[in-house]
């Protein structure tokens, strides 16, 4: 049986993201799906990390905490997992088992 830490996250197949931002709010166009997404700065940072460094969830959480200069605790981990889940529902990311 696999655990969450076994999951590697990556952009959904065929995705190519285009970004614009104003006042710390982001608009992301996925050329692969043709969908446009609205992201706040926290979610945008997670997706940017995931875009550049696909990989296992713990490493992703670590990198996001570093980028945003946030203390890594259970609350932060939960917020990041929630954001990834929303990306998945929006067709932006896919899991790949390690």
């Amino acid at each position, binding site marked *: 049986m696999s655990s969450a830490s076994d999951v590697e996250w990556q952009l959904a197949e065929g995705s190519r993201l285009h970004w*614009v931002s*104003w006042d710390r*709010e982001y608009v992301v166009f996925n050329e692969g799906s043709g969908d*446009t997404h609205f992201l706040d700065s926290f979610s945008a940072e997670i997706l940017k990390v995931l875009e550049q460094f696909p990989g296992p969830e713990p490493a992703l959480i670590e990198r996001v905490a570093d980028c945003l200069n946030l203390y890594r605790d259970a609350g932060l981990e939960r917020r990041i997992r929630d954001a990834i889940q929303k990306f998945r529902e929006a067709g932006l990311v896919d899991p790949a088992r390690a």
Partner: protein
Amino acid sequence: MKLGDLAPLDLAERMKRQGLDLDTGPFVVRITTPIANLANELRALYCDFTLEAEGGLADFHLAVRHPAGPLGVRRYWRRQAKVYVDETPPFEPLPIDMAVPMLEWSINWCAATQVNQYLMIHAAVLERHGHALVLPGVTGAGKSTLCAALAHRGWRLLSDEFALIQPADGQIAPWPRPISLKNLSVDVIRRWAPDAYMSPPVQNTTKGTVVHVRPPAESVRRARDRATPAWIVFPTYEQGTANRLTPLPKARAFFRLAGCSFNYETLGIQGFQTLSRMIERCDVFEFAYSSLEDALRLLVALPLPAPLP
């Protein structure tokens, strides 16, 4: 030659036979009809538009005819009109006195369904000193009322219904066709611009009472002069309110505008890039208004956006 230069009988004959090729700026519209009264009403609304030479190419082909009815009820069918686009009717027949609005809606329908060389947003557009004011809005928000008011007080009309944005440079192409007014706004604009020509009111349409206002001659004359978007203002008419201009965060404005677009999704990455660049260069506001005089003062005083770095 302008449409207004054509004698009424010559116009009726031409519209009945080969049709009228009207240069509306970005599109040549070919209209054919045997209904003489419709020809006269079009002449009044489009009198300042140039006629294309016969035998040329047209972008949209429309015909307005009496629908072919069953034998024996010919008199009933003669009181109906049906628009055909490329010989296919997009809408059900309507009473003949609705022929002008039905034709106008059909021309809009042609653009909304056939044009993809522009990013098209459902918006009125006006211009001052080369800078375009874009007024997107859903039906009933007060967009056309504001548009007609501004177009008769120093602003150049680019369009009442379509912001046509060129992907290559972000400029807006004019399409200065008649302005559609509904219900209470008809009398408001009649008082505001008593010299403006309005088509006879058409009652009981799906939108209520509708009239069309002839576009100012100068706007028609400059139908090829493009303008750079500077302000995007989402208007809402609120009776009795003090006029309020509120900055709108640009990322949120992006989705409001994409939602008002006829072809944002169809254009894919080109739509995203064109819309992004437009929002980047514009100041964006929500605008609640009740007084046209105050609205005019407020909009004239809008500062130019800071130049892009």
